[in-house]
């Protein structure tokens, strides 16, 4: 029974040493001390062969039990100690999450570009091609082929920057219509949208800009009428200013359309009751339009007896000002970054 005593003593000594363990290394050493190849338990196990069968069984079971006890105790202490290590790391890792971030920004589109692309996407979805033309343009395309011969009083409304007698900075995007119709050899139907920069001799102030942006649309086909223009404008107005917008035509005059109309939408601010944005009228003018003048069709090689068309034009600055509540047109050209970065934000549509 000397050996039984020894097992008991081993257990007691293990318990007391285990209590002193402070880190994982000591724990590993402890395991080697008690369960390693040179441990007393291993020595005892080796000596079991010298016992008779009954004693051996009894001793073997006791040794196993001790071995399991030590293993379990060490494992559970290890789990606890590992958890303690993690917990203390978590504690020391903790940061002030309220300190400022590393700023991650991407650039913003210019508000005019944003407005242009919005309108472009709408018309692309209706099968329009986006067409561009030169900003330095011939008088021929900018005026004459748009039914505005030299000396025509209506040219007064578009005081232009000339480079030579025949070349000018285009005062409107309409010459792109002419170029597109002329370039169409087979004189097939046309559905285009022409955005671009335009220039007029206006002194810059809150509502005027010598450089501005227009978007022009042209549809030429058989059986195109004012009703088609009205429907198209209605889609645009609702897209830009909300589904509950109403639209109306007001008779107007443009040399390149006949009949000509102003495109009005019910005021998005007051809904038509009248406010300072619509100057009390309940309506806001978005642009001008009309049925393409037969002279314009003829000059560009389209037979006005076979084809009709509608054209519309609008100022992008005006639309952006209305849509985003910008009150000074110079905002677009000052490029104050505090203004521009506001446009890095999704729309509400």
């Amino acid at each position, binding site marked *: 029974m000397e050996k039984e005593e020894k097992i008991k003593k081993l257990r007691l000594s293990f318990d007391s040493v285990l209590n002193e363990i402070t880190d994982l290394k000591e724990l590993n050493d402890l395991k080697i001390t008690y369960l390693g190849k040179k441990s007393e338990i291993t020595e005892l196990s080796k000596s079991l062969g010298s016992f008779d069968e009954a004693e051996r069984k009894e001793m073997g079971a006791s040794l196993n039990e001790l071995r399991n006890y030590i293993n379990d105790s060490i494992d559970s202490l290890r789990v606890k100690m590992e958890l303690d290590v993690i917990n203390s790391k978590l504690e020391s890792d903790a940061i002030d999450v309220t300190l400022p971030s590393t700023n991650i920004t991407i650039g913003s589109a210019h508000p005019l570009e944003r407005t242009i692309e919005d309108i472009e996407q709408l018309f692309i979805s209706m099968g329009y091609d986006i067409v*561009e033309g*030169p900003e330095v343009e011939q008088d021929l395309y900018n005026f004459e082929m748009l039914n505005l011969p030299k000396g025509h009083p209506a040219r007064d409304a578009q005081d232009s920057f000339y480079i030579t007698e025949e070349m000018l900075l285009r005062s409107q995007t309409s010459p792109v219509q002419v170029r597109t119709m002329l370039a169409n050899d087979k004189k097939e139907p046309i559905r285009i949208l022409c955005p671009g920069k335009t220039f007029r001799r206006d002194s810059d102030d809150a509502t005027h800009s010598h450089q501005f942006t227009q978007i022009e649309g042209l549809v030429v086909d058989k059986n195109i009428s004012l009703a088609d223009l009205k429907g198209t404008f209605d889609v645009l107005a609702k897209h830009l200013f909300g589904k509950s917008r109403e639209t109306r035509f007001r008779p107007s005059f443009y040399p390149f359309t006949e009949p000509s109309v102003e495109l009005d939408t019910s005021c998005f601010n007051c809904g038509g009751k009248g406010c300072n944005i619509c100057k009390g009228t309940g309506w806001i003018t978005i642009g001008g339009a009309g049925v393409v003048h037969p002279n314009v069709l003829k000059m560009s090689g389209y037979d006005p007896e076979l084809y009709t068309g509608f054209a519309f034009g609008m100022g992008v600055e005006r639309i952006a000002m209305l849509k985003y509540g910008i009150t000074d047109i110079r905002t677009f050209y000052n490029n*104050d970054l505090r203004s521009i970065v506001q446009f890095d934000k999704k729309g509400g549509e």
Partner: protein
Amino acid sequence: MRISLNWLNDYVDVKDENAVEVAEKITKAGVNVEGIKGTNIKNLVIGYVENRTDHPNSDHLNVCTVNIGTEVLQIVCGASNADKGQKVIVAKVGAILPGDFEIKKATIRGVESVGMICALYELGLEDKEANYDKGIHVLPADAEVGGDPLAYLGLDDIIYELDLNPNRNDCLCHLGFAYETAAVLGKTVTLPETKTTPSKENIKDVFGVEVETDNCTMFKTRIVKDVVIGESPAFIKNRLTSAGMRSINNVVDISNYIMLEYGQPLHFYDKDKVGDKIVVRMATDGEKTVTLDGKERKLIADDVLITNGNDTLGIAGVMGGASSEVDSNTKNILIESAMFNPYNIRYTSIRLDLRSEASLRFEKGLNYEYTEEALERACYLLEKYASGTVMEGHVSYDVVDKTPKTASVSRDKINAVLGMVLKHEDIMASFKKLDFKVIEEDNVYNVVIPNRRMDVSIREDLIEEVGRLYGYDKIVQKLPIAPMKQGGYNPKTSFCKQISNRMRSLGLNEVRTYSLISKEESNLFKYNKNEELLLQLPLSVDKSVFRQSIIPSLLKVVDYNLARNAKDINIYEISNVYYKKNEDYIEDTKLSFAMFGNYINNNWQNRNIKIDFYVVKGIVENLLDYLGLNGRYTVQKGTNIPNEMHPGISAEVIVDNEFIGYFGTVHPSINKLPIFVGEFSTNRLFSHNTGGLKYKETSKFPSITKDIAFIFKKDVEAKDIIKVIRKKGGKILQDVDVFDVYIGDKIDDDSKSIALSLTFMDTNKTLTDDEVNALLNNIISEVETKLKGVLRNK
């Protein structure tokens, strides 16, 4: 154009109409009534000053007792002309005068005052500056106490302010606007009275007209003798005032009155100063004349002149001369009612900077019927209001083509263009309202267009007339019916939009600057020596050239934002630039950017990423890689870089041996701050555009990385080191990365140490260390021979 409703009512009955509703209807039908101004101020009354005493506590105020019929008010008045026994205009408590000035009961220096005695300028009826000294307005004795003073003065008028489309010159007169009003309201027009009682004496016996130019098509004259120059009757004065013109005397006023009535500018000559004939001729180049304003004018051969055969009497349609002017002693008046070639009047008036209400009407073209009628009307008014005697007959030159203007349109065409379904009755009703004569035959309407409507001449004009009167609000809208097709951008636009999106992703904000810049700016950052586009007539010197580079504009934006305390500026713009090459106008679309400050901010961790050459280079390379140009571009020191760039901190970008653009720091002489800019030709980039994206299988085999360091002479460029290594490394050398550059004490002054990390990988097998080492040794000896690099460690 300003329209007085009192005046309009002479020709079309509008007195019982609601002025606001009528304006709305007219606007909807196409003549834009932009503003409505009324002089119907409430709570004004005619009062009688029963007594006036000096104010006890003031040396210039009066205390008046004013009877206004229903009661007697005590009013303190500051006007020096206020006196007992006057009939005056009283603004009662509650009246709101122009400028939102509300009359309230007040105590002025201890005396109670209930109301205000008014001057005309205080009611907005006269100019304040010119009439301030006149004091309060004293009404004639027949004014009825308690009555409405504005009605008594004929000033209870409503004014429409028209914003006319340039084609509607028919509405530049009350009569023309009356036809439009009648059409909209479905009423008829009453024409003005023109009947006179001429004397036996016939003008033909005493006067002649000769016209020697095609640029005058009608020149009609009559003579009215023995006029008495004096004040105009109140209605003429009031109506001219309403229209924004000043009353001068009865004769001058009549000529202006008729211009506003018929749209026909007249000229009145002092017959006795003219002589016995008028000759209309073209001026000769260099000829001089003195106009009414006393200025000498140099003429050209395109100016039309009115002469008496010897002396010039005036420049036709533009301005008369002093020699034949009507003055207070004038007795006999020669009236001219004429038509000239609008283009001549337009160019002469623009050239001499003498555009007037009259020249404006001449240049827009006149209705010959009114040219005739206005002459008769002038005689009538001179007879009635200037006591003149009209001489029998007129002397006229007249070559106007009077063939009636006609156009035809079918019902089908009307409905096809308007997109409406108008019935025969609807169309006829529109023409009837317009007072157009129509004969309908097989659904085709043959229309005689009145001369007053010069804007109507072709089929489409008739369609518009029918449509606008029927009402565009009755259009049933639809979308065009056409074969379905895909819409989209052209490839170049698409390419630029892709670049734009990538620049934004890289953190740059899009800006839009003016294409016109100053001459000084245009000399900076010039792409090449091409001829620039100069404006003939710029608005200002700072916007006189169409730019060839966007960078000067971007530098201005940088300054603008720095001045507003911006710290970090990352901007780009894509814009067209133009220049002239030989006779051609060349367009290029430039991508330009400017960067300053930090690219990424993290102050408290001291981890800001400052914008320097290598950040900017990273942005440029990212863009080029995105465009699929990886391996096809080189960034190098270059000769194509403008002088405005820092020569040591700038590089050019070459794609397939073509110069695409440059970037780097601006030269310190341009800006002391380290501002980084770049400019690229998207046209050139586009010409190297790549096809679609193709997926490359990733390798299943591991890679091996080896680090080596060399010492080189300082002038050996990283670009060449990498090139030599890559060439020798061949296909299995996947990547070469510089991870350290050292210049300092530990090596010679003229040397630098560069450490590189080389990654090897074979897509077909696992590389062995021996294979890689063998290759690495080859690479090392190549660097040693080609670049004189000395291996530091391996």
